[in-house]
């Protein structure tokens, strides 16, 4: 078959490339913050917040910064920036992006409530009124439980929607799988656990998060396998879409940076670290985070390349 098209629209031809670095970076940061909220909320619910100081008391502030950076990347991607406020003049029930814009509004109060459960010393000494707010919040009955549940709920919504956002875009066969929601949620949990593992000072906390990360990495590997099997057992266009990752232009990056260096190697290192065979170093967590970031870059890039028209590959 020979196809000639006279169109040469920017960002569309010869292949769709409407989203550059901004969207993968946002998906990565959003997913990691979602993971942080779920982890933090979980330990609040379990009454372990005093044992896991970093994840419960330091992460909220870092999460606020990271989600703001993610939203900045999202804003930079917009082509009609001055009209961004239009997102908040409507709620489009069929549009995951509309859901996402409202979910992002819930992320801030959830993280702030988490932050006010314990205001870090340097901030408390400079801004004493924050401590008063914190005291008021903590005096509420069951405050840790409420804050924990709120963070878990918003975290799950945030982590899942980033995947569903892509899977709802019907024209791209690689994205046409609801498994993406679960994959991004698990990857977000994994990168969040890796981040805390990297920055926590307490040895016990680091080990707890390393064990959790091992569990998330294993789950991510299984979900990735299910995602690929799902594609390979579907129609011709989806088989071709899967091949973009398995043997096509994204294969080397996928196998080396996502599967090997992003999952298998850190899983091996962290498994030995929790058994005290090697010491905890930032290498494994950094690899996990890099793998998570590259996973988003690959899925956004390859997804745009995948197409229903077979001659587009």
């Amino acid at each position, binding site marked *: *078959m*020979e*196809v*000639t*098209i*006279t*169109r*040469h*629209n*920017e*960002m*569309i*031809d010869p292949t*769709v490339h*409407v*989203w550059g670095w901004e969207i993968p970076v946002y998906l990565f940061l959003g997913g990691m913050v979602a993971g942080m909220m779920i982890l933090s909320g979980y330990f609040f619910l379990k009454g372990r917040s005093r044992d896991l100081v970093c994840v419960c008391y330091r992460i909220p502030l870092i999460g606020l910064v990271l989600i703001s950076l993610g939203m900045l990347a999202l804003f930079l*991607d*917009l*082509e*009609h*920036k001055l*009209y*961004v406020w*239009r*997102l908040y*003049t*409507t709620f*489009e029930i*069929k*549009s*995951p*992006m*509309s859901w*996402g*814009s409202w979910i992002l509004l819930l992320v801030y109060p959830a993280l702030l409530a988490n932050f006010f459960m314990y205001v870090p010393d340097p901030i408390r000494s400079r801004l004493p009124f924050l401590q008063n707010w914190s005291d008021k919040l903590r005096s509420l009955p069951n405050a840790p439980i409420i804050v924990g549940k709120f963070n878990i709920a918003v975290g799950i919504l945030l982590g899942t929607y980033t995947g569903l*956002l892509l899977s*709802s*875009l*019907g*024209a*791209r066969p690689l994205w046409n799988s609801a498994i993406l929601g679960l994959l991004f949620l698990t990857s977000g949990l994994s990168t969040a656990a890796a981040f805390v593992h990297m920055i926590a000072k307490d040895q016990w906390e680091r080990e707890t998060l390393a064990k959790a990360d091992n569990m998330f990495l294993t789950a991510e590997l299984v979900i990735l396998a299910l995602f690929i099997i799902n594609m390979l057992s579907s*129609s011709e*266009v989806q088989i071709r879409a899967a091949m973009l990752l398995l043997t096509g232009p994204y294969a080397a990056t996928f196998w080396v940076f996502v599967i090997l260096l992003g999952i298998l190697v850190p899983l091996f290192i962290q498994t030995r670290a929790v058994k005290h065979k090697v010491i905890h170093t930032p290498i494994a967590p950094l690899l996990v985070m890099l793998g998570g970031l590259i996973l988003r870059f690959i899925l956004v890039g390859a997804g*745009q390349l995948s*197409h*229903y*028209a077979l001659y587009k590959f």
Partner: protein
Amino acid sequence: MARFAMVIDTLKCVGCMDCVVACKTENDVPEGLNRDWITTVTEGKFPTLRTEIRSERCNHCGNPPCVHCCPTGASHVHDLDGVVLVHHNLCIGCKACLASCPYDARFIHPKGYADKCTFCIHRVEKGLDPACVSVCPTHCMYFGDLDDPNSQVSRLLQERKHHALLPEAGTRPQIFYLI
């Protein structure tokens, strides 16, 4: 409610691109961008080759993914005639509609909003044909209401073999090619 559609006779189309020029002129489409275009597909093995020349544009789908994914309601289906349009002052330029269109029919206008074929709704509302249809020198393009069984487009689809583009995408395209 009308259901506007376009029928294009590929046996008459010669790919002269008059439709492309008419669209750019009528709608002031910026340089380097196209709301419609010509696709030439040659299939088979020599000497039994078959070439189809198609004038393509937004398919004004009955199940439009671009409308479903739009976070602000900028992409919408016109209440009266099923034409898919974009409110420029609601569009934030997120490009989800570009990514969701299996026909790659949308683009970002230099002013920042998503743009595409409108079926020349401003002409249709005055009882005229879209610009591309009105200029076609081989009269291979037909425009009309599919809900009217006596319209020319309905009759052509009843009488002639035809196909739509990528029906497997589930979008219910409203542009049909006679073969």
